[in-house]
């Protein structure tokens, strides 16, 4: 085969590969914005809960809509109007205006039908007498047909009592000052979980659309809730990723053009990167199906560094010709790319599906970009005799200017040893395990969310009690035992209120007991006769009550009944099956004394699978353990890289120097970042892998045995790589998304430090 034919064949093969990747991406890839993808593998009930319920925690389906107006009454009235308009809207399971009167006609059918099995108060002659007397006062105070109807069938107000328990909350004022006006709250529970952003978008659109139709002047609408935050995060990621990707691309193109002075070469340098991106996307489409927005934003920026490969090759090609440049540069690129891929392989095995996606994306992307640099780039019909000239400023940075002191070459080794020592001794100072520090939701919004949840009695998302059982009924029975103990904690001021799935589905034994305790028709008639004596009530008015009590003895509540009710959403989030056992959650409402709660739980008489969880602590332990695991895996990857380097270079001292350069770069970057931004997060950690890869690359190229001319070109191409990497990630460093900001700062700092060390220590 002639060279021309061979090149055409290669280009055709690469084009077919690119088309195949595109086909896979467009046919299989789905986008997701569920942050739980990035949570590591969990251990223990509390961490498991964090993972299981991330994005669908109890209360996370609630949207808080504040209608604002200049007058309190207007805000209250509009809030009621808005909630009435949304009652039958498909995206919502329940909508309630806080200012709306608790309508006696609004008791859901489920609660009304099963009220005597759901009511935790026993029906007794004395209790009935007290309730009948109380009802007389109610009727005389303000009568209404709805009240009369309720009293006839439910003089003990069992239905309203169950509703009170379901609400579990204190009373929110119908309106409250907001700025110079007033706000009134509408609470809407969405059908879709918080992480289902499509469903959340529909819910938000329905809310805003109906508010718009109120068509009132000088009023406003402010919506809070996990779903809204998720949409905000998605929008921020999209805007930031778009804006910063464009800016970074422009900067890289500018750097490349400044280096090559030929658009054809600049374009050629971009093609391996593009092929790497396509292959990375196709790989996660094949392996995972769904890709997280952060993987795309993060992965594309990380893969941006693979532009270094064509830069090295083309930079050398201009001086020595392409064939010699391939011989010269490709072994180092191959070692660098394989080392980076090994590090990402380690990351892929750490147990977080989001980071595994990122690792697979980067691993495949890096390998394909390196392969394309070797086998695709040389096949392009580039004007070979017209090699680009480097810019004068870069030309000065040649090998002649480099320090040659042998003693300085040990500098990276010394720094690496010192940094490792400090790192081991001061590990807690460098790392933050606070997941919340990573959220792109503004702190003020989170504070307001917490306030609204406390004020409306919505569950606090931080504290929860977990009960585990081998069957659903066992979990429910354990919750009932525990609830008796919780009464004691309430008396001691440790908790205020709580909500458990048992309010909607008592255990089978409790249902049987309550049904058995209901009096016979004859006995109830006697109790009623006694209760209405000395009151104007007519005993026959309570016929519906007697009928309903009798019928309740034959009833049984099943999970399916609850799932057909408007409470399906809250029930599902409080009782679920995972990994072969059932988990019931007790959510705490109002003020919680967590220290007291922990002490109470350790002294309480119940034992078994009950855990009091502070989700913040759980998230910290999850991340801390994850960091330890990542450290171990990365340590193994580093050993593999060292072996690879020794095997490839056959010189232990050079391999050691290269690894020491990378480690010293990492150590100094960690110290510099800690000084600049405070303790580092798990995303800094991932970005440090890229820094390690850069350190290896710079070390490889800087220590390459070569002629003075080759060394000069090596330093130039390394410098072009450093400038383009710093420009790209410098743009990210200013991102308002903590994840992207962390990556940008880390890689920019690390890139400059590694380059400095490699340059300083090269001999």
């Amino acid at each position, binding site marked *: 085969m002639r060279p021309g034919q061979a090149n055409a064949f290669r280009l055709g093969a690469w084009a077919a590969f690119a088309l195949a990747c595109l086909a896979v991406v467009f046919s299989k890839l789905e986008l997701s914005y569920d942050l739980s993808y990035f949570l590591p593998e969990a251990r223990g009930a509390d961490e498991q809960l964090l993972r299981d319920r991330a994005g669908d925690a109890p209360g996370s389906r609630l949207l808080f809509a504040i209608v604002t107006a200049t007058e309190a009454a207007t805000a209250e009235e509009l809030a009621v109007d808005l909630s009435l308009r949304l009652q039958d809207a498909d995206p919502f399971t329940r909508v309630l205006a806080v*200012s709306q009167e608790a309508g006696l006609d609004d008791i859901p059918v489920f609660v009304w039908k099963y009220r005597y099995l759901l009511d935790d108060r026993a029906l007794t002659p004395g209790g009935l007498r007290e309730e009948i007397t109380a009802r*007389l*006062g109610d009727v*005389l105070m303000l009568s*209404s*047909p*709805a009240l*009369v109807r309720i009293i006839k069938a439910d003089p003990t107000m069992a239905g309203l009592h169950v509703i009170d328990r379901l609400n579990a909350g204190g009373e929110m004022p119908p309106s409250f000052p907001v700025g110079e006006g007033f706000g009134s709250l509408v609470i809407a529970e969405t059908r879709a979980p918080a992480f289902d952003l499509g469903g959340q978008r529909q819910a938000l659109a329905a809310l805003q659309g109906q508010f718009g139709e109120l068509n009132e002047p000088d009023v406003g609408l402010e919506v809070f809730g996990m779903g809204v935050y998720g949409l905000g995060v998605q929008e921020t990621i999209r805007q930031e990723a778009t804006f910063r990707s464009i800016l970074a691309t422009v900067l890289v193109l500018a750097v490349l053009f400044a280096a090559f002075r030929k658009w054809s070469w600049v374009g050629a340098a971009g093609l391996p990167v593009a092929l790497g991106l396509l292959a990375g996307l196709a790989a996660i489409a094949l392996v995972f199906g769904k890709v997280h927005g952060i993987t795309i934003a993060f992965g594309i920026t990380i893969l941006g560094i693979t532009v270094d490969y064509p830069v090295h090759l083309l930079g050398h090609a201009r001086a020595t010709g392409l064939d010699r440049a391939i011989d010269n540069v490709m072994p180092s690129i191959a070692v660098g790319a394989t080392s980076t891929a090994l590090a990402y392989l380690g990351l892929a095995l750490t147990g977080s599906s989001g980071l595994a996606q990122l690792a697979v994306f980067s691993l495949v992307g890096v390998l394909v970009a390196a392969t394309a640099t070797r086998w695709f780039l040389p096949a392009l019909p580039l004007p070979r005799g017209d090699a680009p000239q480097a810019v004068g400023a870069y030309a000065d940075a040649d090998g002649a200017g480099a320090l040659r002191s042998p003693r300085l070459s040990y500098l990276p080794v010394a720094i690496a040893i010192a940094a490792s020592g400090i790192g081991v001794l001061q590990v807690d100072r460098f790392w933050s395990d606070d997941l919340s520090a990573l959220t792109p939701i503004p702190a003020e919004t989170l504070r307001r969310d917490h306030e609204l949840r406390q004020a409306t009695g919505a569950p606090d998302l931080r504290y929860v009690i977990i009960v585990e059982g081998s069957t659903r009924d066992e979990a429910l029975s354990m919750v009932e035992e525990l609830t008796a103990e919780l009464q004691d904690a309430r008396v001691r001021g440790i908790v205020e209120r709580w909500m458990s799935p048992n309010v909607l589905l008592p255990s089978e034994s409790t249902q049987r007991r309550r049904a058995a305790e209901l009096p016979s028709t004859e006995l109830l008639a006697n109790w009623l006769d006694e209760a209405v004596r000395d*009151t*104007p009530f007519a005993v026959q008015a309570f016929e519906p009550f007697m009928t309903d009590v009798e019928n309740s003895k034959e009833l049984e509540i099943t999970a399916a009944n609850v799932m057909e009710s408007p409470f399906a959403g809250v029930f599902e989030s409080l009782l679920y099956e995972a990994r072969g056992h059932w988990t019931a959650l007790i959510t705490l409402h109002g003020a919680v004394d967590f220290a007291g709660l922990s002490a109470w739980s350790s002294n309480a008489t119940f034992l078994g699978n009950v855990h009091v969880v502070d989700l913040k602590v759980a998230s910290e332990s999850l991340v801390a353990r994850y960091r330890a695991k990542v450290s171990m895996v990365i340590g193994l990857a580093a050993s593999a890289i060292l072996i690879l380097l020794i095997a490839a270079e056959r010189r232990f001292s050079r391999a050691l120097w290269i690894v020491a350069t990378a480690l010293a770069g990492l150590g100094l970057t960690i110290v510099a970042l800690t000084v600049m931004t405070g303790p580092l997060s798990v995303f800094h950690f991932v970005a440090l892998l890229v820094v390690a890869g850069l350190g290896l690359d710079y070390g490889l190229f800087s220590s390459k045995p070569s002629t003075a001319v080759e060394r000069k070109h090596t330093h130039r191409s390394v410098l072009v790589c450093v400038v383009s990497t710093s420009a790209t990630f410098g743009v990210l460093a200013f991102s308002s998304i903590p994840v992207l900001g962390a990556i940008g700062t880390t890689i920019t700092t690390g890139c400059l430090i590694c380059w400095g060390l490699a340059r300083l220590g090269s001999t």
Partner: protein
Amino acid sequence: MIAALVTLAACAGSLPLPGDDVDAMSMIMSSLAMPGQEKLVFVEERQSPLFDEIVTVSGFLERLDDDTLVKVIEEPVPRRLSLGRELVTVESTGRARETAISRYPALAGLRSGLLGLIDRDAGALLRVFRPSVETAEDGWWLELVPRQARIERQLNRLVVHGCDETLIAVEVWLADGTVEQMRFVTPVSSGIE
């Protein structure tokens, strides 16, 4: 004095009230004998599908402070209902339960109407209700329809009946058709001249 005379004349002789309903209400209010400090003793006769017989309820209305109206039922079961600017408090047998008054628009409307009457404050009533006045030989009828749709959804109207400077009764017309009449048994004659 002149207003009182005009009202008296209107009661006695079915003379047309001068001006529109607002003026008529203002005249009634200014002539009404209703010193705010005293208790207004009332009797209500209540019928209900729950009762064997008509129940007579007795008690009194009292202004507790600038914002709070108290309705006390003494017979047949003691109950005390405080209607404040923001809260409703129901007390019975030593237990008190508080809730926001805006959850009970009918009670909020009743509070505004009764406080306006006790204060003889036509302006306060006008802020909450649209008035209309009818007169006949046996007295005058002031119909107060809530301006706010939210209140009107529960409280259809209040009808205040009186003659001369004497307040005779207040009828509470709820939106579901229930009508409760509160008759005042010790109307106070003030020294209006």
